[in-house]
């Protein structure tokens, strides 16, 4: 993704609308699903997606044709969610990443013993709802990296731009998110008597 905030161009009204239709609208489904996984609410998701598209259109002159429109839209949606929607909802406060990253980067190799009691077969046998519930139970920042990385396939660099954090932070957040997810799945599996 090459995002250039300085290289503004002037699209005509007609060009803007064509660009909007060709570059932005194809990502409607992915954006709606991203919004839904952040809000769990159909109406909030619709609002969030509409806001995102309106903002994208209003700032279309800062969008460079041929660059990664999807990442650009995801970034706008994520920022709108943080700024507007999260305030309204009762999302828990942000976790302290310093603590989290310190935990992950510690030299201790045998950290969470979660991998040992959660076998590959069990993950394979999990049904979609179980994985969805485990994902939904994660703090929104951890949920977001899993969505961006595993569901949408963005690169670390793209995620770093979408989330406004350095690549190193993206990395440690993914690891932490996956470890948490495994913990949740493992707890779930134990409860179900796997």
């Amino acid at each position, binding site marked *: 993704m090459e995002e250039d905030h300085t290289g503004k161009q002037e699209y005509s009204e007609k060009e803007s609308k064509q660009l909007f239709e060709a570059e932005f609208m194809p990502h409607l489904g992915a954006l709606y699903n991203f919004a839904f996984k952040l809000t769990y609410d159909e109406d909030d998701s619709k609002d969030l*997606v*509409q806001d995102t598209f309106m903002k994208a259109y209003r700032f279309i002159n800062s969008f460079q044709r041929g660059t990664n429109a999807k990442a650009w839209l995801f970034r706008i949606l994520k920022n709108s969610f943080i700024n507007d929607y999260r305030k309204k909802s009762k999302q828990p406060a942000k976790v302290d990443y310093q603590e989290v990253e310190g935990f992950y980067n510690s030299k201790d190799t045998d950290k969470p013993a979660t991998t040992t009691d959660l076998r590959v077969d069990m993950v394979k046998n999990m049904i979609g709802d179980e994985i969805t519930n485990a994902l939904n139970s994660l703090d929104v920042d951890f949920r977001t990296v899993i969505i961006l990385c*595993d569901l949408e396939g963005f*690169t670390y660099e793209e995620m770093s731009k979408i989330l406004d954090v350095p690549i190193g932070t993206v990395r440690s957040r993914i690891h932490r998110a996956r470890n948490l997810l495994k913990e949740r799945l493992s707890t779930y599996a134990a409860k179900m008597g796997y």
Partner: protein
Amino acid sequence: MGVKKLINNVRFKTGMANCAEYMDLIHDVIDDQATPDQEVYLRRHLKMCLKCVDHLNLEQELKMAIKQKIVDRAVPSDLAESIRTKIENTTL
């Protein structure tokens, strides 16, 4: 053979390699973010370390399960039209 390589070889053979340093690489590899050289470097360790092989397999399965088992919701049928209408009525 450089000293660093030699030390690494000894560590591999004696099982003293620090697995923590491979954790990042495991995620990089499953996320397709590693260079071919880095991948070779990891594979070399995997030949000696079952613990990391297990870890890689589990991470890979988890990623695949997320991809395959979390299904997309259908976009509400009126959403695209309502966005297009708003855009039509917007002048820049």
